[in-house]
């Protein structure tokens, strides 16, 4: 009964109306908005104007959505090179909010929003949350960081617009997160998947069984997480775990969101137009074929993005979704082109390792990959924390486990892997994006 009720609310939540636009109207809307965006960027952003001129392109050359691939790409480096305000398409006085991405090396990248931009962002976040079945009356724990990171405030405004009750707890202080989840009778939550796994582990140590709490749904994102990690989270927390897709350069969270059927995020393409390209050649690939996701913003005022290369590897799903949304879906992001490790000439993605690990035991979510170089040869060590579920008093069982993990990973990667079982709580816990790879190859 509850499941049915949730499904009905989910399908017919009023904020979700634009998700069901007839396709021909959606395409008309997209074209009109695309033409306005290209015009705006050409007129106001030096970099876009120069690049279009270099290709002999004028805004009026964009006559249909099929002309989109003629436009030049924008890449992350463009935001760094024009730091901080170089890509703004409006006077600073029209900008009501700035966010910045965590720059791991050097300067961060800065993004700007006009009031209209914030309204659009709020509306897509409300639609994302509605597609997770969240509504007025839900008590929502927002464990994304508040501040320059887009996660916290993005969810916050969407939740308020939807009429849900927001707990703006932000990231960190895990014991308090668990206490509040229990005492406030939290029904839904958002966090990075790795931080949520840490919360579950802490809850269990504190004697709190999250499966017994009213918590029933979570929106997770801002780092790649595998389908096996989803199953682990759903079983350990007794919830439905939905993918939330987004990136700072485009708006933050709310670029796409999964529906009840959890078959990859629907892109809110009335505002964000998706393409998939071959990352090597830059050419568009057919639906269903994997490549790099490229997004063009269709309504952004302060900082329009023309064909932004996300570095996320995915495919546009050719089949329509049983939920009835006309919005296209992307395959869940399993990897990013810049996550790729080249180990002894073999391409390896951390997500392949995660999948192999969880396939063996299903209960080993804390791991780290350490790369070193010995005598010129790359070595990969995967450190895996031992959990109470897999630990017994027999040495043989642990040796078997270690061998099973080694075989699973070597099979998945085609590479020699050294598995180390390590004590719990040895690996650093992140309150945001998890650091899975430590590359020491250049140190030796």
């Amino acid at each position, binding site marked *: 009964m509850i499941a049915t009720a949730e499904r009905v609310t989910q399908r017919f939540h009023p904020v979700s109306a634009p998700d069901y636009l007839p396709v021909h109207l959606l395409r008309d809307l997209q074209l009109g908005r695309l033409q306005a965006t290209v015009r705006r960027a050409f007129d106001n952003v030096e970099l876009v104007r120069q690049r279009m001129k270099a290709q002999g392109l004028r805004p009026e050359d964009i006559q249909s959505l099929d002309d989109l691939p003629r436009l030049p790409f924008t890449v992350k480096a463009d935001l760094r090179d024009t730091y901080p305000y170089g890509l703004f398409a409006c006077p600073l006085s029209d900008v009501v909010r700035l966010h910045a991405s965590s720059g791991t090396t050097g300067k961060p990248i800065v993004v700007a929003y006009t009031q209209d931009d914030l309204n659009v962002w709020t509306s897509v976040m409300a639609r994302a949350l509605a597609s997770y079945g969240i509504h007025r009356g839900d008590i929502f724990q927002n464990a994304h960081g508040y501040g320059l990171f887009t996660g916290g405030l993005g969810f916050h405004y969407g939740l308020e617009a939807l009429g849900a009750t927001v707990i703006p707890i932000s990231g960190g202080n895990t014991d308090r997160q668990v206490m509040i989840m229990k005492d406030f009778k939290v029904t839904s939550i958002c966090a990075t998947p790795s931080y949520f796994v840490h919360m579950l582990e802490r809850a269990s140590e504190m004697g709190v069984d999250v499966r017994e709490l009213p918590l029933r749904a979570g929106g997770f994102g801002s780092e790649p997480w595998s389908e096996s990690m989803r199953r682990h989270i759903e079983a350990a927390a007794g919830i439905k775990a939905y993918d939330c897709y987004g990136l700072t350069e485009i708006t933050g969270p709310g670029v796409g969101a999964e529906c009840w059927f959890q078959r990859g995020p629907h892109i809110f393409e009335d505002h964000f137009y998706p393409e998939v390209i071959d990352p090597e050649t830059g050419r568009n690939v057919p639906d269903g074929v994997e490549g790099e996701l490229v997004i063009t913003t269709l309504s952004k005022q302060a900082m329009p993005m023309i064909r932004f290369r996300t570095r996320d590897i995915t495919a546009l799903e050719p089949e329509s979704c049983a939920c009835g949304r006309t919005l296209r879906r992307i395959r869940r992001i399993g990897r990013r082109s810049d996550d790729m490790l080249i180990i002894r000439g073999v391409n390896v993605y951390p997500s392949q390792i995660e999948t192999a690990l969880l396939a063996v035991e299903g209960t080993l979510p804390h791991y780290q990959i350490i790369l070193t170089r010995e005598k010129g040869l790359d070595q990969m060590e995967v450190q895996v924390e*031992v959990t109470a579920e897999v630990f017994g008093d027999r*040495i043989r069982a*642990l040796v078997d486990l270690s061998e099973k993990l080694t075989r699973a990973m070597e099979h998945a990667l085609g590479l020699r892997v050294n598995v180390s079982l390590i*004590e719990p709580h040895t690996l650093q816990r992140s309150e945001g994006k998890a650091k899975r790879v430590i590359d020491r190859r250049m140190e030796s």
Partner: protein
Amino acid sequence: MKIQQLSLFLENQPGQIVKPCRLLAGEGINIRTLSVADTKQFGILRMIVSDWQRAAQLLKDAGYVVNVTEVVAIEVPDKPGGLASLLQVLENSPVNVEYMYSFPSGRRETAVMIFRFDQPDAAIKLLQSAGISVVSSVEVYNRAEQ
């Protein structure tokens, strides 16, 4: 009849064993006996302690993975053939000894061995019917205090 043994996962590195020992010492918990099984990379510390429930909780709170296993303490005559005569009882049964280690019995003529059987109940039954004395948990905890 059965005794609760605590097992701890430890990485095989210098200084790893002292930490849990120090923790229990600070709480006034006595380690009656222990044994370490090790591989190149990790080990398992197995212990019989004076207050296993409190010890298990303390260790869990300190972040250790703790496993509680039921083991059996058996009195063995401290003379040639003592252990062999005991093991003979199990020889033709399906019961398997996973591992064993000794325990300070506090007596001259007998030793106490801790056994981990794959089927502890079946083992106890066989041993008792052969007249071998299985030491109760209270006795085990008290003996070394004498």
